[in-house]
């Protein structure tokens, strides 16, 4: 049987799983819930692997379109169709594999939660939506998945809906995402109005046939491509938590840790990067927007990294690290290194999922405690967690020969080509990353335990169902890097594999990116140095069983900065002041003033005046018949006078 015919199964299976778990299964039937919840993504993983194997062996690089059914017709016609090409292939691989592992992990992690069944229903729903997103053959299907994952993120962040904060965080996430989606929609309208289709292939064909059609001036001095890409990028900013819309991601940590790992680290938040890469043909035609992308990415990267330095909640650290890494990816996409972007996306998926699950394992052991100040010295109690977490940390820090090293290096190389400034920022960020990640490790696993007695009593390594996925991910975090460009060699499997995805537009060829060994050596050593310095600094401050003292000492030395970082630059507060409250005030004004006071007021005044006229007028009927006679006579006279003249 031909697995490539079954693309539609890949998203459908998780959806089915979600439906079954959500509607048919009862809370009591935990085994069944587990079977369905694991089985659906498992099957979809198998189908995906089969399809990918068949794809990469039989027709690598080709684009496989598969229309399932016609969605709308009439003035606007679009199909529900799937597309398999190198880009979606890689994404599908990452999503299904990491997703499945996290599902397995969840069996252990969520084992004692009351909402077990609901959790898996939502997770499956998410898998389905995410796969729809990456496999969609046109922007509409992509958007459907795009909003679908947003919904799941809303539901899963608010998983503990009986508490105060999580639902609020979920709402925040959804609304902020909606801001992006709004721009996304406008982009789609512009696309359709220009090209008459939302099909990736169709648009690509038209642009290639006539690039001028895309570079034609449109609005506000933007070209078509410029306007569209800008809108799409705003959408990506929302989804992938970039400045200025990143604020929802840290709060999103209110959800269960596997959710953070799957949605807010490995897959959903990277959808923006995927979308930019998917639309690379347009971005190539809109250099000014690409620059915007790169700058925003770089800024986010360093900005979030600095915040990460001062966070004490282990998941918050990882969250800001995620934001920062996403910034890295956008930096790559912005400078035109789309391959590097996707490369980093993939590696990041592995080690960030690993880190989150590790932190989950820690929290699990700590009985829900997330504050690193109350941890410490856990490496003895949680050996496996410790090891895998360390691997992840080194990988993300860009320690040579681990996945992060390669992908980050590719990005920095790309950045250098565009502008040394961006490269420099990337470099500093790399250093910071290494620093705060090691800080996390040191505060969590080294020193002596700072938790309460009974916490110390309950400390235990997590069950195999949780540690095994950690192991697998750790392996991924080590080897994934070798898929991409390996410095000092011409080995670049990913690059070759991706060649057909990165459109080559007549007249807009990107300058070939192969520089001399000397330069390459320089860049590589620089990034190694950065990582090294970062790690060193972290060791100097938090290492050697100093516990918290080192950190607090530094905090005492720069109180202002520390305060600023600890409170995340007060961005939430600022937004609240300048956006939320004024809007609410306006709304209230509309309601109380315009509606009630002006419109209804006018009506009531009108009614009152009418009534008053009548009420005063009726006294003309005095009840004295002599007046009536007078009225009659007066009436006659007036009318006569009127008739005469």
């Amino acid at each position, binding site marked *: 049987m031909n697995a490539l015919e079954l693309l539609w199964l890949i998203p459908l299976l998780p959806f089915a799983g979600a439906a079954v778990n959500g509607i048919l299964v009862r809370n009591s039937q935990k085994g069944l819930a587990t079977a369905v919840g694991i089985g659906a993504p498992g099957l979809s993983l198998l189908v995906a692997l089969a399809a990918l194997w068949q794809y990469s062996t039989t027709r690598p690089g080709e684009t496989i379109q598969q229309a399932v059914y016609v969605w709308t017709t*009439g003035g606007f016609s679009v199909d529900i169709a799937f597309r398999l090409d190198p880009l979606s292939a890689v994404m599908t691989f990452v999503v299904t594999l990491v997703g499945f592992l996290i599902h397995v992990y969840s069996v252990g992690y969520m084992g004692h939660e009351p909402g077990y069944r609901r959790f898996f229903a939502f997770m499956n729903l998410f898998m389905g939506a995410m796969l729809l997103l990456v496999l969609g053959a046109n922007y509409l299907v992509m958007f459907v998945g795009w909003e679908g994952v947003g919904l799941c993120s809303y539901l899963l962040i608010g998983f503990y809906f009986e508490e105060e904060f999580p639902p609020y965080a979920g709402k925040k996430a959804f609304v902020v995402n909606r801001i992006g989606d709004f721009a996304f929609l406008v982009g789609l*309208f512009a696309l*359709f109005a220009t090209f008459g289709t939302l099909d990736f292939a169709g648009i690509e064909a038209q642009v290639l046939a006539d690039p001028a059609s895309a570079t034609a001036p449109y609005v506000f001095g933007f070209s078509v491509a410029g306007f569209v890409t800008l809108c799409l990028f705003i959408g990506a900013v929302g989804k992938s938590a970039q400045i200025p819309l990143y604020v929802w991601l840290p709060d999103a940590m209110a959800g269960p840790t596997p959710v953070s790992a799957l949605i807010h680290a490995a897959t959903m938040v990277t959808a923006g990067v995927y979308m930019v890469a998917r639309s690379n043909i347009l971005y190539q035609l809109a250099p000014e927007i690409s620059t915007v992308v790169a700058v925003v990415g770089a800024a986010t990267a360093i900005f979030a990294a600095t915040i990460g330095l001062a966070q004490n909640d282990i998941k918050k650290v990882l969250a800001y690290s995620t934001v920062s890494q996403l910034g890295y990816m956008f930096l790559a996409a912005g400078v035109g290194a789309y391959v590097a972007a996707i490369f980093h996306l993939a590696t990041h998926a592995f080690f960030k999922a690993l880190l989150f699950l590790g932190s989950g394992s820690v929290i699990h052991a700590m009985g829900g405690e997330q504050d690193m100040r109350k941890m410490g010295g856990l490496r003895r109690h949680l050996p496996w967690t410790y090891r895998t977490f360390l691997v992840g940390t080194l990988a993300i820090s860009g320690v040579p020969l681990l996945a992060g090293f390669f992908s980050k290096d590719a990005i920095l190389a790309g950045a250098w080509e565009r502008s040394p400034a961006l490269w420099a920022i990337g470099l500093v960020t790399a250093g910071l990353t290494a620093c705060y990640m090691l800080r996390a490790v040191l505060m969590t696993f080294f020193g002596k335990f700072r938790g309460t007695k009974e916490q110390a009593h309950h400390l235990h390594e997590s069950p195999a169902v949780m540690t095994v996925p950690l192991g697998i991910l750790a392996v991924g975090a080590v080897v994934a890097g070798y898929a991409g460009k390996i410095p000092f060699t011409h080995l670049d499997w990913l690059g070759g594999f991706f060649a057909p995805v990165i459109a080559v537009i007549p007249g807009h060829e990107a300058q070939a990116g192969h520089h001399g060994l000397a330069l390459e050596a320089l860049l590589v050593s620089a990034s190694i140095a950065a990582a090294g310095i970062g790690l060193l600094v972290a060791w100097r401050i938090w290492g050697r069983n100093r516990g918290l003292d080192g950190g607090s000492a530094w905090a005492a030395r720069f109180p202002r900065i520390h305060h600023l970082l600890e409170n995340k630059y007060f961005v939430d507060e600022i937004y609240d002041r300048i956006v939320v409250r004024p809007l609410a005030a306006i709304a209230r004004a509309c309601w109380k003033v315009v509606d009630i006071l002006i419109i209804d007021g006018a009506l009531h005044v009108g009614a009152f005046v009418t009534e008053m006229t009548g009420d005063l007028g009726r006294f003309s009927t005095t009840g004295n018949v002599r007046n009536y006679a007078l009225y009659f006579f007066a009436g006659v006279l007036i009318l006569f006078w009127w008739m005469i003249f």
Partner: protein
Amino acid sequence: MSSEFTALLLGDSITRWVFFPTLAAIPLLFMRRAPTAAIKWYGLVVSLIELFFLVTFALAHWDGAGMVVKDPVFSWIELPGLAIVYEVGIDGISLPLVLLTGLLLPIVLLGSWKGIERHWSGYVLSMLLLTTGILGALVALDLFLFYVFWEVMLIPMYLIIGIWGGERRIYAAVKFFLFTMAGSLLMLIAILWMGWTYGQLAGTWSFRYEDLLLLDLPLAHQTWLFAAFALAFAIKVPMFPFHTWLPDAHVEAPTGGSVILAGILLKLGTYGFLRFALPFFPHAADRLAPWLLVLAVVGIIYGALVAWVQVDLKKLVAYSSIAHLGFVMLGIVACNLVAWQGALLQMVNHGLSTGALFLMVGMLYDRRHTKKFEDFGGLAKVIPWFAIFFVFSALASVGLPALNGFVGEFLILLGSYQAGYRWFTVIATSGVILAAVYLLKMVQETLWGPLTKEENRHLPDLSAREVAALLPLCAFMLWIGVAPKPFLEPSRPALAAVLESYRDRLAGPIADQPTLAISAPGQARVPTFLAASARRESTGPQP
């Protein structure tokens, strides 16, 4: 006349399902003493029979592309030089709304099962009369007839709000009545004026839709007449400055009343624009389009903002209707096939999702006798199934892809963008953000968070009856969202035809005094209904 009419009533005709509810209402006059349960079931059965009539009719007269069916025309009021005909017909534009009406009627009765405590016979009676009024207005092809049905809707709705409503029900009912009447009276004058003008030119008065479409009026006349029609319809929709009756009416009306009101009555305004105001006065419509667009967009943003700060569930949903219908108006004014398809679909969508929301607000009210947010919170724990349906409908209303709301909004916005109203579209699109804001607020404050109120701890979850009322709605929401094609197709030919004729007339010159376009049947000038080829008379006596 009577003979033809009775024959139509008996035959498989539009007339039958328009008047069946009224006929079925007559026994209720003598059932006042009957046990309430009997009356409830009687009403339910009648409504189901009505639904059956509608569905069978639609299927029977369905040809692959669309449907255009007319009952045989016969003269209703005939005087020398004045002929008012009884002419009803249905096409792809009215079909969805007609079916929606049929779907909502039984659901409304189910939803009112507990909520209505007094005078059930009167309640069912009003509902059935209301149904006749609505269906009649949707199929009437003679403007006099249309006006009659249009007004017939008022009294039952007035009674429903006023008798079974809440605290300030009388204020709300009277407000609703006077608002609507103010608009429709002007429309009456406009209709008479058109009939007279036609009479001047053709020798005999006529209010037939097809005849009046042949009028070519100078711009000044068009503008005034359009204003009169637009006012009547804009009040019904309601568009921005004329909307203040809606929140009151909704908050005070009983659940069933709100559902019908939001589900269908409001749509008659938008339907009126689509069927009458635009085709009759293309040039005026074209010239006034910017103003209507401004009102529509203001309505979207304004409704959303105000909804956001409401403290009363029902009021929030009511204001959300203003925003949603703002989208519909945007689509209609955009005058482009995509937008019109979206608008028509969105009418149905709003009927489904908002209808469901009102139903569920009513269910909460039946349990707790309050609609204030402060009295709720954390209900998801207590009544999970309710929570599921509530979130589902809310998301449909937010316009989440794969649910119905998205399809309509997307098509509308896409269409208006294509039509060249870029910035209006962009502003309108920002409405989707606000939609998320206020609807999630609603969900949050009712379902999520800790269970604060002790009274809420033991609320019963949805009963089978309530699920039966909600399930069809949610099923359709999902179906439309996942595969909207079968819901878009039927109306496309009709919309295309109307649009074509509208464009033709717009392209044509503006008459400097009223003239009568001599048009052969089936000419693009008069869409669908005159196209003898396209028309198939429902079986009934030939006049």
